[in-house]
């Protein structure tokens, strides 16, 4: 390890060594040849949809903790679905959100700070089965009911209730599939729409729950 001669030292061109102007509004523009490249901020800045699987202890208030944390840390949850698992005391949340890679990693790390959170896994890049369930109440009369039913059948949905002026459609699939079904029947008039949000499971024999060390 040899000392660096100050002549080749980039500090000689460091803005810190240049005289600083007193008024904060009139800082001198950095000399073009001397300015180092700006430090990159964490994250690529390219946002996309991420799916997180979160295993939590089934204790009072745990949903509140997760939701409150996401709000306080400025993450926007697109969907959240919670249910029990086969293990007593453990609940599973599937959470979808938009953000860049680092932001979502940060969300995961913040979730890990919660004492009741056991496991957070970003399955966005994994091979998964993704499903959500939707119920749609669509305006359908004698004249167009057959059309509606045809569309629903194409989407492997089914009619679960029929009234003179409306049908209730049950459909399941990925978020994108449900989106396109909704877009197609929107022309007939959607009276009501409810979606559960995505639930996912890894393809193959791997198990997020079994990987838990309890």
């Amino acid at each position, binding site marked *: *390890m*040899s*000392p*660096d*001669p*100050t002549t080749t*030292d*980039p*500090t000689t061109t*460091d*803005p*810190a*060594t*240049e005289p*600083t102007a*007193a008024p*904060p509004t009139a*800082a001198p523009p950095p000399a073009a040849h001397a300015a*180092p*490249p*700006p*430090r*990159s*901020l*964490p*994250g690529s800045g390219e946002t996309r949809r991420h799916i997180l699987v979160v295993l*939590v*202890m089934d204790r*009072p*208030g745990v949903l*509140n*903790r997760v939701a*409150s*944390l996401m709000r*306080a840390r400025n993450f926007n949850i697109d969907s959240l679905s919670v249910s029990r698992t086969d293990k007593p005391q453990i609940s599973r949340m599937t959470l979808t959100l938009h953000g860049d890679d*680092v932001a979502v*990693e*940060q969300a995961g*790390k*913040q979730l*890990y*700070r*919660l*004492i*009741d*959170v*056991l496991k957070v896994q970003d399955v966005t890049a994994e091979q998964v089965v993704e499903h959500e369930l939707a119920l749609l109440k669509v305006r359908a009369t004698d004249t167009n009911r057959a059309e509606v039913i045809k569309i629903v059948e194409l989407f492997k949905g089914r009619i679960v209730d029929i009234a003179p002026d409306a049908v209730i459609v049950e459909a399941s699939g990925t978020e994108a599939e449900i989106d396109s079904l909704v877009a197609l029947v929107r022309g007939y008039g959607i009276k009501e729409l409810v979606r559960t949000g995505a639930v996912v499971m890894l393809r193959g024999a791997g198990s997020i729950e079994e990987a*838990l*060390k*309890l």
Partner: protein
Amino acid sequence: MTMTKGESLAGQAGGTPPRRSHVPGDGTAAAEAIEQARRAMLHEVRSRKRTRIGADALMEALIRQGADTLFSYPGGVILPIYDVLGDYPEIRHILVRHEQGGAHAADGYARASGKVGVCMGTSGPGATNLVTGIATAQLDSVPMVAITGNVPGSLIGKDAFQEIDITGITLPMTKHNYLVRNADDIPRVVAEAFYIAQHGRPGPVHIDLTKDALQQETRAEHPSLEDVIAGLPGFRPNTEGHPRQLKLAAREIAQAKRPLIIAGHGVLIAEAWDELRAFAEKTQIPVAWSLLGIGAMDEEHPLAYGYMGMHGWKHVNRAIQAADLLIAIGMRFDDRVTGSVKTYAPYARIIHVDIDPAEIGKNVAVEVPIVGDAKNVIVGLTKLVHQVEPAARAAYHAQLAEWRRESERSSWHGSGGWKEGVLSADFVVERIGELTDHVATYVADVGQNQMWLARYTKFRRPHSHISSGGLGTMGFAVPAAMGAALGNPAAETWAICGDGGFQMTSQELMTLAVDRIPVKIALLDNKKLGMIRQWQEIVYAGNYHSSHLPGPDFAKLADAYGVPAFRASTPDEVDKAIKAAQAVDGPALIWFEIEQEQNVFPMMPAGKGLSDLIETWGAPEE
């Protein structure tokens, strides 16, 4: 006993009498006598037969966790606790005058002692008054257990008298919180709370107990540590740095020409100051520190470089901007440290050591992340790095020393300093440091006083500096110093505060007086909210709205509480007043009437970078 202007105290100041203390473990005869009386009382009370209720389980659990001091204020729903409190003389109850004071005191106690601080308040307003103190502890990673009562379980959710959803309020500002509705849960919850509060990255844990849980009879036993850990499967902090990351870090260190260690609170929490010094000496890398990292390195050490950040020393910020490697240990690249991240340390690669994975990559992108306890990581790194001779870094060290000379010479030691006989704040804190041999516990409030203390007092002992860094809580100093004095009774304890912060929690003077807690308060009175005034002067074109702050006659105020007060308004009165306050057995206050318009320089304006420091403003040329 009130004296002003430090007069007629020359005799007393000469020989400081041995300090009398009844703090347990202090070793004095008085403390010993009280301890014996306590034991006798303990024997007496425990033989009294009565049912064991939830409140007993709580007190037993606190004692089992090693709590010896409880900062608290009674109220309706926690009366069951106050009913049994007398049966547990192991715990010294400090009756604060406001719950906020109790929370800050528990915070100061924890920071000074390294143990978990405990505070308590009743439901509703008692609980909400604790909130500021809990948030302060959360932002500064201080281990604390805050206990509140709540209305009986059957009344929860009914908007009952003094009912508020306090666990909902503390949820985002605690490491964890509990609502306990059953007495049988109390032993487990308290044990978990203490475990969580002090392991991993420390933080406050809040326990809300319903009144009926406190009153129910219970036979629940206290869990073993193994049971506690087994009951918290989601809490497994990683304390060992990954060997591969350590190797990568060692390689970076071997290649670096201008490395700089930046130490934070984590070094102190991990009690890694000796390891840090050994690491710095082996690699000959200078050490800078954040506000809460003060004390991680003895400031007299040749490798101690200084305090960095918004109001840090110019030479330190300059070294950061010039560094080619930053070794950040137990700090979190707060915006007060980095300023604009885009222009922060433009030539530096960064090694970031933190026990909390969420801190890594949160504010700045880093090249080598290491998750682990600061002590373990430093020890691991020290083994892997090469021994570097001082001569090998001579040019670098010479450059840093040159910058330091320049910065200390040009540094603006307050606009008051240049006037003849005007009392400037930096002079006061420097003298306090000098006359206490730099090893007292110094508790800062928030604002200019905090920055003056951090810059000019010179800290030579770990945990000698206590400051509300993250939350910046005005009113912190006096109550936190109260806790610090009880948490580390061996050290002289000073609260350094401005007139603004002092007026926020001055009611604790009564607690200091009644419990004879020997806190010396240095009140830097510029009759202003100094930092606000400074920003208004520099950033808001001198629009001084609401920063002028008339205060009372502080000597009379202290006197009314029975706290001896001294006054100094010229530089030559300072030493006399400090010595006079030191000679008082118990609390004392010194009213320093300092220059009213002194600014803290250098200063980094908001949104600017470390290279854009303002050094002087509207002041005459030297």
